[in-house]
């Protein structure tokens, strides 16, 4: 078997080449109760930092998405302590100053770009911080749409900003107040209220199990 050596928390293991960091850890005998979720690159639970032999750079990546390399030094980051002040979205205004009022430490950014280099999703993290700093809520929402809240940027930032919480607030404000409403959704909600689908739903609720299964199998499947 083609194997590589990796160092997990400082201890060396021989693991099959081609495994993800997550699988390699499990192969080495770790049982992951934290730092592991979707295994598909979506949940951001598996933030991991590593270095490669002969390379000064500190890499950050998702353990479930990154293949092991020979001589990798690995440590998991199952949780990022980060500050998120309590707020009620209904009481906030979608104005530039809202982000800065809740996260004033945004003003500590020194534009070093370390966050961008740390992001496994390859987002322009510093640009998003800069947009937040100047109150551009849709800009932040846009730049951070693919953030998985892994917290790697937050751990690396010399300004001690809690990035992913800022992103979440910006996206919430953007979604709640700044994105144009979809009129057809409102229309459908009205139709539901008016009982347009009631008859059909009642019929399904009253149906015996066999009938339901048959109906499910015979459903139209979108191509």
């Amino acid at each position, binding site marked *: 078997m083609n194997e590589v050596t990796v160092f997990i928390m400082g201890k060396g293991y021989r693991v099959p080449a081609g495994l993800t960091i997550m699988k390699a850890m499990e192969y080495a005998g770790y049982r992951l109760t934290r730092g592991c979720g979707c295994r598909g690159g979506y949940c951001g639970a598996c933030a991991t930092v590593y270095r490669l032999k002969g390379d000064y750079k500190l890499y950050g990546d998702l353990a479930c998405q990154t293949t092991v390399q020979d001589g990798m030094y690995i440590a998991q980051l199952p949780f990022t302590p980060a500050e998120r002040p309590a707020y009620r979205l209904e009481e906030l205004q979608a104005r530039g*100053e*809202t982000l*800065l*009022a809740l996260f*004033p*430490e945004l*003003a*500590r950014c020194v534009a070093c770009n370390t966050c961008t280099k740390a992001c496994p999703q390859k987002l322009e993290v510093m640009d998003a911080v800069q947009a937040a*700093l*100047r109150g551009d809520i849709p800009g932040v929402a846009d730049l951070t749409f693919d953030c998985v809240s892994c917290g790697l940027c937050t751990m690396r930032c010399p300004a001690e900003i809690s990035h992913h919480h800022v992103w979440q607030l910006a996206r919430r404000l953007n979604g709640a107040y700044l994105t144009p409403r979809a009129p057809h959704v409102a229309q459908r909600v009205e139709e539901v209220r008016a009982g347009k689908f009631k008859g059909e739903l009642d019929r399904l609720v009253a149906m015996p199990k066999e009938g339901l299964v048959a109906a499910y199998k015979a459903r139209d499947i979108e191509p």
Partner: protein
Amino acid sequence: MASELRLSRAGLEAPFARRVEELSGENPYACYQCGKCSAGCPFADHMDALPNQVLRLVQLGDESALSLSAPWVCASCHACGVRCPKGVDIARTMEALRVLALRKGITPAPVRPDRPYPQIALIGAYRKLTP
């Protein structure tokens, strides 16, 4: 501030004075205590030691300069520096003291904005007053 002045070679060669000089790029020993800086400083009324007195403490190698409030009240407006007949930019000395204090863990009251501030104010406050 010390009420009694003790002059000694050790004080004059104190690593503290050298460190302040290194960080600020300004020679504290150039100052001959004329006080023009303090006369022109728009913030002197709010300081516990006048700019020339701060410089004096540095000359004497007296680290109590790090616990003064004066450097935290200094707004880096450089009114002192443009007036100094000896060309000392005291604002830089003040910054060196702030930076040394912050690096040693001596901080002024934490920056806790009480309302939304323009970015420009917050950025300045965090940069000057937090480690």
